[in-house]
């Protein structure tokens, strides 16, 4: 059996699955249940500084994007950071950590952007015996209007400054949680590293409005007839998160900085993708909120089976394995040629490939042959765009075939070259090297 345990910037965890800082980690009761179910760690729901607790709305805090069968595709929330008393939270964190010494307990913190505020809270958090802290620079609703959360995460200078304060006032590992509501994720990640961060975690949620009620014409979710943008998460955001994780992992300025991957992870396959693109741990929230804490058992089982199946002896061996396959467009091999192939034995004759290609792509699929309904790729038109593969309802019916070097591309009439050719060196590029 492969080993699923990890060490993440000095924090040990029996498996890479942590509950993200969110409602599931609000208090000892939930966290105890999570650890009983098998979660490797938790990031405790974000603490605020001492004082009167925050106030949440007592109406819809969540909204969902659902498929026709009510499968949850996307999820958003407008809940704030903890609305519990700081002292109660600190006491509970200490008790939970004592009870679950082998699990990772990380405490998320969000206090005003003043050195004194951080200097005050950090020793209190450290006293709980927790394993690390996560700086919430990501929350995109409510707290950002008060100069915290994503308001900090959107300004690299603030990230660098606050991270440096934290490194100054605590010995605990510092994880900086990044907001995706920016133009280029590499800049806040670089700022975190420059400030001394031990790791980054991403993505936090994305600004979102879930919809408009067609009867009342109010946005949803709404509280008393009005709503505000929330933070979007769940399966739909995974591709955005994967890209941002990969961007940081392959950026020379941040390469090697531990990453805790977050965003739409609901299965072992999702986790595998984040890890293969450079994440060392993964954080989950929506899947737990939909299915309950038990879901971690399926993730652990699946990832474990995968590692065994592929002959990995540890998660560390898997980490970053897909990163070399990520590059800039400029370095894609323009000499490669693929053609779609429709397996006639699997084809159910729905014609979706045909109409997609005919109306919106390259007119490279037939609809008839000898007067009969028949869908077949016209290689002389096919550019290998993959649209037909994506719209086909049958798994494995349409595939892309890579032409072998020397084979004639029937669209261009030219033989496929064995050489690689990047845009940087392409004859059509006026700025090519050596031009």
């Amino acid at each position: 059996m492969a080993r699923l345990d990890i060490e993440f910037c000095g924090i040990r965890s029996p498996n890479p699955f942590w509950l993200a800082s969110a409602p599931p980690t609000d208090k000892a009761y939930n966290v105890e249940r999570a650890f009983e179910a098998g979660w490797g760690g938790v990031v405790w729901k974000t603490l605020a500084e001492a004082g009167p607790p925050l106030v949440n709305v007592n109406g819809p805090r969540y909204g969902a994007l659902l498929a026709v069968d009510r499968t949850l595709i996307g999820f958003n929330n407008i809940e704030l950071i903890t609305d519990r008393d700081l002292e109660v939270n600190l006491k509970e964190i200490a008790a939970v950590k004592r009870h679950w010494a082998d699990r990772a307990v990380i405490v998320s913190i969000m206090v005003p952007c003043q050195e004194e505020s951080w200097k005050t809270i950090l020793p209190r958090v450290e006293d709980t015996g927790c394993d690390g802290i996560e700086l919430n620079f990501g929350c995109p609703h409510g707290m950002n209007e008060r100069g915290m959360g994503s308001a900090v995460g959107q300004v690299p200078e603030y990230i660098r400054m606050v991270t440096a304060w934290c490194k100054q006032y605590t010995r605990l590992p510092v994880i900086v949680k990044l907001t995706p509501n920016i133009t280029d994720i590499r800049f806040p990640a670089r700022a975190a590293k420059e400030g001394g961060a031990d790791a980054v975690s991403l993505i936090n949620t994305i600004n979102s409005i879930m919809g408009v009620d067609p009867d009342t014409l109010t946005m949803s979710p709404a509280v008393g007839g009005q709503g505000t943008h929330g933070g979007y998460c769940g399966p739909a955001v995974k591709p955005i998160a994967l890209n941002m994780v990969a961007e940081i992992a392959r950026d020379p300025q941040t390469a090697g900085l531990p990453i805790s991957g977050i965003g739409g992870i609901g299965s072992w396959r999702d986790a595998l993708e984040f890890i293969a693109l450079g994440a060392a741990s993964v954080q989950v929230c929506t899947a737990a909120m939909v299915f309950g804490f038990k879901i971690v058992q399926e993730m652990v089982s699946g990832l474990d089976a995968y590692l065994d199946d592929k002959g990995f002896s540890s998660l560390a061996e898997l980490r970053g394995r897909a990163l070399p396959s990520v590059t800039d467009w400029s370095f894609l091999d323009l000499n490669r040629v693929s053609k779609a192939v429709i397996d006639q034995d699997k084809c159910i004759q729905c014609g979706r490939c045909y109409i997609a290609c005919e109306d919106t792509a390259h007119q490279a699929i037939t609809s008839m042959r000898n007067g009969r309904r028949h869908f077949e790729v016209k290689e002389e038109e096919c550019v290998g765009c993959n649209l037909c593969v994506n719209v086909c309802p049958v798994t494995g019916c349409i595939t892309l075939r890579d032409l072998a070097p020397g084979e004639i591309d029937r669209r261009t009439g030219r033989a496929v070259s064995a050489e690689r050719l990047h845009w940087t060196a392409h004859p059509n590029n006026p700025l090519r090297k050596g031009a």
Partner: protein
Amino acid sequence: MSEQRGPDIRPGRLTVEDYAAHFADHVPPLTHPQAVLEASRCLYCFDAPCVTACPTRIDVPSFIKRIAEDNLRGAAAAILEANPLGGFCARDCPTEVLCEAICVRNVQQGRPVAIGRLQRFAVDRLMASADNRIFERAPASGRRVAAIGAGPAGLACAHALARAGHEVTLYDAKPKAGGLNEYGVAAYKTAGGYAQREVEWLLSLGGISLQCGWTLASPEQFENLRRGYDAVFLGLGLAETHELGVPGERLAGVEDAVEFISTLRQSADPGTVPVGRRVLVIGGGMTAIDAAVQSKLLGAESVDIVYRRGPHQMRASPREQDLARTRGVRILHWLAPVEVIGDGGGVCAVRFARQRLAAGRLEPAGEECTLEADMVLKAIGQRLGNPLLKQCGLALRNGRIAVDEAGRTNVSGVWAGGDCIAEGQDLTVDAVAHGLRAARDIDLRLRSARARAEE
């Protein structure tokens, strides 16, 4: 207990609760969540095969997509635009040999999208809505059309012509419109009086005046119609039932299955309809199935369908045959009636000769058997049987009215469709398609005549 004379045929074999359960919808309507989930299985195929399999070419992918998107009014509009009797067809069509037979989900998942049930869901929702009108009539053309026969063909034709702005008089010999939808289809397929609700909805368009109790009785009357109207559409039903042609056919207890079904459909309480203790239904089509199943539902102890050929020659679809079997009906093949045997009071048995195929023709195999019966229902087909049509100058083919590809008869200004024409398939949806085809052609003709008149 006194000895009963004659065959055991009587009403009231069951409790009130049994009757209510037996004559409710045999396919329950989909709930809204079921409909949305089922709709999501539709792949929205290009040039969808299901559409080509529908005689009325209903745009199935569109109406199903609209159900999935909660646009139920739009879904109903897509259906009724192509087939104004879409609600009835959704209940009655043998979808398993039409649209659903060719659904691509059969190949992938072994189960087609439930097109018929979805169609019923959409139309039912429209019919039940506060404002169920979706069509408006074109400006009045000043043209008048007579439609003879208010069955599916006549209703569809009248509705389409009324939409086009023409005034239609719809004549029917029966007390109610609907034709076989009202008098001939099994009650459990059109529970809740759907056939009449549909007629009311069709007539609510306006421009159609219904005259029931009107029979085409003479060639003069036919000529008067031709003179009095700008066009005439014949949507007649098949008036006569084939006879067995064997001794004993007139014995008490031997009835037409069509009459039996009609009596049941028109009775307010199925408990008042007499049925035999042991019923034999002779025939192999939909009428045989409908008569047999309903005999069973009325409380008959044993019901056998007896057909002279094999299962593959039966006109009843495999699904209909299965329905009969699951309702406890036995289907016997390769038996042709030789004699209906009486015991003085009425029928008591039927003697059959086993049949075999020899060079494609049926012939007696030399073996006989006798089945006891209290009631014998004849369902061996119907024929037009109206000698008047020939006297009116209408050309016939195979005993039915000959029409061209637009539904025109050989008599100028007269169109025909439904069971009375040579190509009739005896399906409601075919009759609707015929009616609509003729309406299109009539409308074209009337418009061009008007254009000529205005020149």
